[in-house]
């Protein structure tokens, strides 16, 4: 085990490998041994990919030995959420219905990480099919927040957040539909990015709600977070929703003297926001003001409807996307002589209760007689919410809010109350509905030590401003 491994950033690892302070195989051993000890305690991983990881690490060491280029992520251990395909390694989406599914191809995200020299050490636990806000909906059991006290890590990308916060990997990838990267980043006290819709190819990401799904990343500092995004972003011919955008080299552009116009939407600071968490956000606003940024009170009048809109559109799309799990092409099959009975039994046993609840609600809101009142109406209100953001971005560069109304809650606390669980995404869902980028950055803690996350949202494809303001905030806090 390399000394202080769990404190090393991706940048530290890259430098250490180039200086020959340690080898890629030693780094890989450290990551996997922590994943087996600490990772098991936290239940952060579903599968560890030893063989492929060590083969890649040996190849990096060979390249270093021959003075060859090891790539911008050369030798850095990475974890992928278990809904992102990685060839020949099980990809379960934390669902029983994907039992024994082994993808015969790589997601574009995995392909780009590997070609940049990254070392994928495992697949992380998650809420089943990314449906959940606490990582308690996994067929493989709940993930624990490394902060302790039996707290949830948030969800749905709880395993990836937990693995990064515990120092098992410096960078991990998750996915977002309504806050599934930012909310766990906030609960675990780390950085999380939900990129612009179209920012990262979704080829090889299991679909949940296609008009919102995005791959996102976690890290313990802003430079690693921006590096992770830089490696995987950009147009991919295998995903027609990925956008051709000339992404700048984010990690090199973090230091900036820019003074930003920051909007504070009053709707995000009303009832529901925990007082202590709110105080941390207020302190941050004061710090930004002192640093010369302009703070403006703004309004996003339709944002309080975000969860209502989200839970119509997301479940409608999910009911359609999850129709593919039928016991025929891959995964679980419960045998029956009758085809329809086989479907019914396989899907009933294969899906967990939250997934079934959403498939049924989604089928309901799309059914004849209800479509106009729910799905069509929700899409209209979504358009109004999108216009709220367009209006606001004429005036300000970014919008600042808390990431979640409260800090991490206890395992079991909300599992029997789906609506209370859904409401922990009330501040994150608007960015998914509007397709804009957002980050969650660490912003102090409440009095018992649970971390608070601060969210910043910007115009589509202005991730650069988010990285720059986050980098500035980290400096202000020092």
């Amino acid at each position, binding site marked *: 085990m390399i000394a202080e491994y769990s404190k090393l950033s991706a940048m530290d690892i890259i430098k250490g490998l180039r200086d020959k302070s340690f080898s890629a195989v030693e780094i890989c051993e450290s990551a996997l041994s922590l994943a087996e000890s600490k990772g098991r305690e936290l239940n952060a991983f579903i599968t560890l990919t030893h063989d492929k990881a060590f083969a890649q690490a040996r190849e990096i060491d060979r390249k270093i030995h021959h003075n060859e280029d090891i790539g911008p992520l050369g030798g850095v251990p990475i974890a992928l959420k278990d809904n992102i395909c990685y060839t020949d390694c099980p990809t379960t989406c934390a669902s029983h219905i994907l039992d*024994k599914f*082994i993808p*015969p*191809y790589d997601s574009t995200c995995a392909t780009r990480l590997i070609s940049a020299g990254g070392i994928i050490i495992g697949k992380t636990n998650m809420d089943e099919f990314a449906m959940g806000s606490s990582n308690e909906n996994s067929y493989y059991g709940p993930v624990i927040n490394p902060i302790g006290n039996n707290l949830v890590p948030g969800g749905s990308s709880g395993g990836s957040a937990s693995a990064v916060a515990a120092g098992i990997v410096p960078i991990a990838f998750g996915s977002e539909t309504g806050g599934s990267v930012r909310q766990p980043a906030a609960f675990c006290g780390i950085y999380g990015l939900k990129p612009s*819709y*179209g920012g990262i190819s979704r080829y090889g990401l299991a679909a949940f709600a296609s*008009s919102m799904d995005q791959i996102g990343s976690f890290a313990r500092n802003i430079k690693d977070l921006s590096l992770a995004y830089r490696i995987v972003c950009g147009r991919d*011919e295998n995903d*027609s*929703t990925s*956008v051709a955008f000339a992404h700048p080299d984010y990690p090199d552009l973090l230091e900036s003297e820019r003074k930003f116009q920051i909007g504070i939407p009053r709707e995000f600071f009303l009832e529901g926001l925990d007082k202590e968490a709110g105080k941390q956000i207020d302190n941050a606003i004061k710090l930004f003001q002192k640093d010369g940024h302009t703070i403006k009170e703004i309004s996003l009048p*339709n944002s309080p*409807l975000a*969860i*209502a*809109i989200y*839970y*119509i559109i997301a479940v409608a799309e999910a009911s359609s996307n999850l*129709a593919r799990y*039928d*016991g*025929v*092409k891959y*995964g*679980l*099959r419960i045998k029956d*002589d*009758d*085809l*329809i009975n*086989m479907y*019914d*039994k396989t*899907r*009933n046993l294969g899906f967990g*209760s939250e997934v*079934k*609840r959403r*498939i*049924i*609600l989604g*089928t*309901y809101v799309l*059914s004849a007689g209800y479509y106009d*009142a729910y799905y*069509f*109406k929700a*899409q*209209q*209100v*979504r*358009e*109004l919410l*999108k216009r709220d953001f367009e209006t606001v971005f004429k005036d300000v560069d970014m919008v600042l809010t808390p990431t979640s109304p409260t800090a991490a809650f206890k395992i079991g606390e909300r599992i029997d109350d*789906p*609506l209370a669980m*859904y409401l922990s995404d009330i501040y994150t869902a608007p960015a998914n509905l*509007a*397709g804009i980028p957002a980050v969650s950055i660490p912003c102090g803690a409440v009095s018992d030590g649970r971390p608070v996350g601060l969210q910043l949202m910007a115009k*589509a494809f202005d991730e650069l401003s988010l990285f720059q303001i986050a980098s500035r905030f980290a400096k202000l806090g020092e």
Partner: protein
Amino acid sequence: MPITKDDILKIASLARLELSAGELEKIHKDLVQIISYIEQIQKVNTDGIMPSSQFIKAENVFREDIVKPSLPREKALSNAPDTDGEYFKVPKVL
């Protein structure tokens, strides 16, 4: 009119889900609560608003019609619960 248990059974059958009595009870209770929450969008005035479904300026993407290698049959079938070596096998339909 609140959603009934019969509605749920009908929808579940359309979605190919066979719910147990206990599951039906719980899902019914949850859905009544969730639907009454999402109802709040009804009060928004959306006259003349076009529904939005996507946020990128999607354009047709054209490419040359060149045949490239695709997933070999053996790999495509490798995850199937049942095959005859060439096709997916399902219980008798007719």
